[in-house]
């Protein structure tokens, strides 16, 4: 195990050194990432100002909380699971790089996780974090020790969820060759959908988000942190479901990945 951690650290270090070779590119990347994020956040907020500064009774600060959590979590996923980003993974398989990794006496999952450690995502994480912190200050959360412990767990759960989606999307490319657009519906679409309080959606949309349990990832944690009553009358345990959903999907995704690897071994490229 120690060797594996050591190996992972070394692979990440290689990535860092690689990316730092291109200092200008890295700087521009980080700046533009941050700018894009900022605009993505600012635009709906500006629109909101036209609509009386609230959605479904939720104030700007509260919406910023929703946004800040998801943004930070997704940036974390992009950082850690970059190797499984289908846009990166599919071409890698086509080029035969996966075979190359399989020729090394190291766990293949570890190698892929260590192969696309995107340094510039730190900028994105920082920016998401700033929004989050500002939001928390704006809404005046009544902090308890439970809540303090809860927040990072939720963020990790969200990151795990997106990571799971990445892995599922990448594994499917073994069968479909091209990346599967439908995964983008869940990653990008899911992200946007989760940035707004769920009670504003119609019933059947909420149903979908309960079956694909996205509703537990951001909305319920927010309700809990903000001490808001639950308009949808879910069981009291709902806020605790975030990490369960997130890590549950991640676990299922890994299972699917193992299955995909076996398929790849029997059919090749």
């Amino acid at each position: 195990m120690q060797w594996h951690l050591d190996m992972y650290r070394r692979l990440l270090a290689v990535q860092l050194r690689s990316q730092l070779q291109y200092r200008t590119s890295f700087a521009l990347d980080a700046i533009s990432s941050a700018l894009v994020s900022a605009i993505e956040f600012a635009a709906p907020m500006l629109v909101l100002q036209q609509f009386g500064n609230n959605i479904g009774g939720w104030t700007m600060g509260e919406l910023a909380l929703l946004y800040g959590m998801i943004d930070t979590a997704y940036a974390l996923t992009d950082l850690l699971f970059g190797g499984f980003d289908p846009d990166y993974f599919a071409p890698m398989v086509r080029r035969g790089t996966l075979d190359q990794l399989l020729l090394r006496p190291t766990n293949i999952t570890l190698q892929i996780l260590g192969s696309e450690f995107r340094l510039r995502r730190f900028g994105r994480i920082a920016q998401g974090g700033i929004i989050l912190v500002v939001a928390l200050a704006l809404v005046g959360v009544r902090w308890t020790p439970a809540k303090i412990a809860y927040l990072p767990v939720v963020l990790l759960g969200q990151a795990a969820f997106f990571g799971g989606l990445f892995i599922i999307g990448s594994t499917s490319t073994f069968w479909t060759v091209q990346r599967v657009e439908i995964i983008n519906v869940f990653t990008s679409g899911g992200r946007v959908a989760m940035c707004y309080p769920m009670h504003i959606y119609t019933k059947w949309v909420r149903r979908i988000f309960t079956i694909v349990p996205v509703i537990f990832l951001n909305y319920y944690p927010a309700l809990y942190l903000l001490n808001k009553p639950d308009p949808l009358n879910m069981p009291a345990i709902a806020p605790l479901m975030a990490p369960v959903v997130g890590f549950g999907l991640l676990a299922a995704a890994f299972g699917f990945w193992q299955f995909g690897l076996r398929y790849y071994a029997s059919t090749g490229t």
Partner: protein
Amino acid sequence: MRSPIITVQNLNKHFKVRKHHRGRMAGLRNFFTHEYRLVRAVDGVSFQIAPGELVGYIGPNGAGKSTTLKMLTGLLVPTGGELYVGGRIPWKERQAHVASLGAVFGQRTTLWWDLPVIESLDLLQHIYRIPEARFRQNLDEFESLLELGSFLDTPVRSLSLGQRMRADICAALLHDPKLLFLDEPTIGLDVVAKERIRQFILHINRERSTTVILTTHDLSDVEKLCERVMIIDHGKLLFDGTLEALRERFNGRRELAVDFAEAYESVEIDGAQVVAWDGKHATYQFERKVITASELIGRLSARYQIHDLEVREPEIEATVRRIYEERLLES
């Protein structure tokens, strides 16, 4: 054969390939089709390789070479048959198996593109868990044999093709693999670079008894390096033996292309056939059994003024096609 390092017995790899429709509505029909045909990429191949052998594994494109190699390296699971490398089933014990083999691919590098060569090698030391002393020893030896010193600090992306190949070969051998796979190791290299790589391969094979399997389209690679040649086509092993046996069996026609100093009326010669002629340039075909190249050149020089000439060996593709046709006739 003393305990072989590779044992392959009746190895099969079949792929199901979707049937492709043609004609009207072909696109739509293809989308809905569930019909398959069976492609026998590797079909009942059997052979054994002893430790320390230097074997050429050749065949035309699509013959089943890469498929066999992928099974030998553990990347692909066979459909049938038995396959043991170093006593292991490659695909079942991937990490253990892969730790004792090295691979060099002419078409792409195994090193990290943006980093200096030496950093890639350092990383490989950790991946293969090579003890520091052994790593230093091997690195020093390869560095001097392959003359890597001048570009160890250069990023891989900035290397010339020849430099990259040398770096890749070094990387493949640092962990003292018992088995080395070379896939087109000299492709795209100039003559001098090719020779250097070949010398190195011979050295490794002799000094370290590393078993080497060479896949290549370059027949001169095979001639200079391999004692033993295996030819595969259409998934079947057509030939497994020495190079001399191959030449004799093949008994093929070589060509001599001649540039004459002046335009002759006739360029006929005993023992060879004129297959192309446009005044000053002629191409002769001759058979090894009937006349040697030097004899033919001698006869021609005695008769005509020659400006330049070139002996052309039969293409490996043609050789294999011929052998395949022969076998077809035999059975």
